[in-house]
């Protein structure tokens, strides 16, 4: 089972006619994703990679069913595009946009929560269940990373995902579903909100989280473990352990303020909750072994 998307999902693509949109739409299809239509205002009647384009989601839904939306939309227009999808009844959405204004991230997350939708992103590479379906810009062709298997992976970082997941695969495992929640300081869906899906997934035996300094998402995972809401084996790798305090290293999320969000706090919380935390990516595979045998 895939926890977010499989071949039964009917995916519409917002911004399908752009360079990035059309390129990755083809890859999504190639991996098996069921893309039903695309949306670009003003371009109705065109086709991209065999799929029809509509001015609006509303017009696309007159001809097709869809339950999932993939956005290749610039950050400044992302809020409007997500609201369009939510208004149209779409409840699974992925946006890769890097640079969504902070206040709009809050508004999007608030709107999604109030209608029970899951919006994944922004600033993410996307979501993939290798061999089944993919939404985003994930290089499923890199075999030593995107190998089908039974480990769930949640990540805040694109570049680190390949690094750490390669270690999972090297240890003899594969990936059930990889969820990139993105590197923004306000991820639209948080780690702890995805955990129940992994918990319920019979095809996920354990979860690897790829975190970093800043924010409280890793601490929330620890809380879910403490409360018994998540009981499967969990290994975490958290980058930024030696990062100098107050320096912003890349991701908007990766800034430490006060005592919150330090790697130490995250490691302590996860360890107390029964998880294993790797200091180096290469420790992730062995730690999975340790928990699962």
């Amino acid at each position, binding site marked *: 089972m895939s926890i977010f998307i499989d071949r039964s999902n009917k995916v519409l693509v917002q911004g399908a006619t752009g360079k990035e949109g059309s390129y990755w739409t083809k890859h999504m299809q190639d991996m098996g994703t069921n893309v039903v239509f695309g949306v670009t205002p003003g371009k109705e009647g065109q086709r991209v990679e065999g799929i029809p384009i509509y001015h609006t989601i509303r017009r696309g839904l007159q001809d097709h069913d869809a339950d999932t939306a993939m956005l290749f939309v610039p*950050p*400044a227009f992302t809020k409007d595009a997500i609201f369009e999808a939510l208004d149209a009844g779409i409840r699974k959405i992925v946006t890769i946009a890097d*640079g*969504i*204004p*902070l*206040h709009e*991230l*809050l*508004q999007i*997350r*608030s*709107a999604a*929560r109030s209608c029970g939708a899951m919006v994944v992103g922004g600033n993410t*590479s996307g979501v993939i269940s290798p061999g089944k379906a993919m939404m985003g*810009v*994930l*290089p499923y*062709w*890199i075999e030593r990373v995107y190998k089908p298997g039974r480990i769930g992976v949640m*990540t805040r*970082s*694109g*570049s*680190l*995902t*390949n*690094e750490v997941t*390669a270690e999972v695969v090297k240890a003899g495992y594969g990936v059930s579903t990889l969820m990139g929640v993105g*590197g923004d*300081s*306000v*991820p639209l869906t*948080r780690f702890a909100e995805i955990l129940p899906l992994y918990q319920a997934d019979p095809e996920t035996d354990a979860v690897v989280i*790829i975190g*970093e*300094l800043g*924010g*409280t998402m890793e601490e*929330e995972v620890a809380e879910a473990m403490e409360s018994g809401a998540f009981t499967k084996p969990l290994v975490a*790798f958290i*980058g*930024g*352990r*030696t*990062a*100098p305090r107050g*320096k912003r*290293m*890349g*991701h*908007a999320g*990766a800034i430490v*303020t*006060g*005592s919150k969000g330090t790697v130490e706090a995250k490691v302590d919380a996860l360890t107390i909750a029964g998880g294993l935390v790797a*200091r*180096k*990516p*290469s420790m992730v595979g062995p730690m999975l072994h340790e928990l699962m045998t």
Partner: protein
Amino acid sequence: MKLFEYQAKEAFRQCGIPVPQSVLACSPGEVSGAIGDFSMPCVIKAQVLQGGRGKAGLVRVVRNEKDALEYARTLFEERGVRRILLEDAVDFAGELYLAVTVDPARAKATILACAEGGVDIEELAATAPEKIVTQHVDLDRGLSGHHMRNIAFGLGLNGEKAKAFNKVLSALYQAFRKFDAELIEINPLFLTGEDTFVAGDGKLVIDDNSMSRQPGYEITRDHYDHDVEYEAALAGIPYLQFDGDISLMCAGAGLTTTVFDLINYAGGSVANYLEFGGPNYTRAVDAMELCLRNEKAKVILIVTFGTVARADVIARGLADAVARFRPSIPIVTCIRGTNEEEAFQIIRDLGLTPLSETEEAVQRAVDIAAGRVS
């Protein structure tokens, strides 16, 4: 982007938050031209971004013009300060703390208030959290009467004080929204003997993703600790300078940060953090130019594991950079991802060894820096 106090206070003024009368001066001459308009004592404040200016001797109450000019000259000439703010001293009866920031999990704005201002709020939050009044606000619904009542009554304010406070709070929230703030803070918020409020200091951090709709703010040398950091920022490449000798040239924030950790674990030390992932992945030449500006660097370590950032494109960029700069220090590469076989060949053609394990590459760079291998 973090604004200087004078910029924050100008934003406050625009939104109706009372601030003391002030003048910005960029030279001793400007100070002496303006100082006559101030009654003494007045306050002189260095416009720098670091916190704890008081303890660092960067803020001072001056008693007369002579003191003022002398202190201003010290700041400009000895402390390397580029701008100072001359400001009326406020005669205050109390100091409060008031800020608006965001709560990512709740997806709301968060107002923080405390009846004891002028202190290090993070320390207070750690030692006496019950003194801080918190209020979450949904951005779409906005600030409402009950939010203000929760805060004002929580601070023990009532009557005219509460009314005046609510005006400041309302204006601060409007400023938070208008300026796309990550954080907007008044600390201290002075309460005067006449039950009015005046912002003693001002902090405003604008969300970087919103800068395109917040025109008029430019990054300056003062935003950075080093010249190269400033130049890198102008070039749009994340770059931080440190005291070590290994120059990181990596793609992706998470991976770069992890390499930073791995260097430290291996006993090495970082000369600079440079991240040329995302849209910058084709800019290996610019990236290497910045790395080579750091004279302490003994080795350049390139680690990438690219998705859109194709390995072959990065390797070709590296080849261009090597051809252009002919770096005298060694280069260690660990460039993987899409089209990596092609990348490995390009790297071999450069006479380098294409490593494919990050930790191996890190160890090699540390060994080179330590002089154990070359």
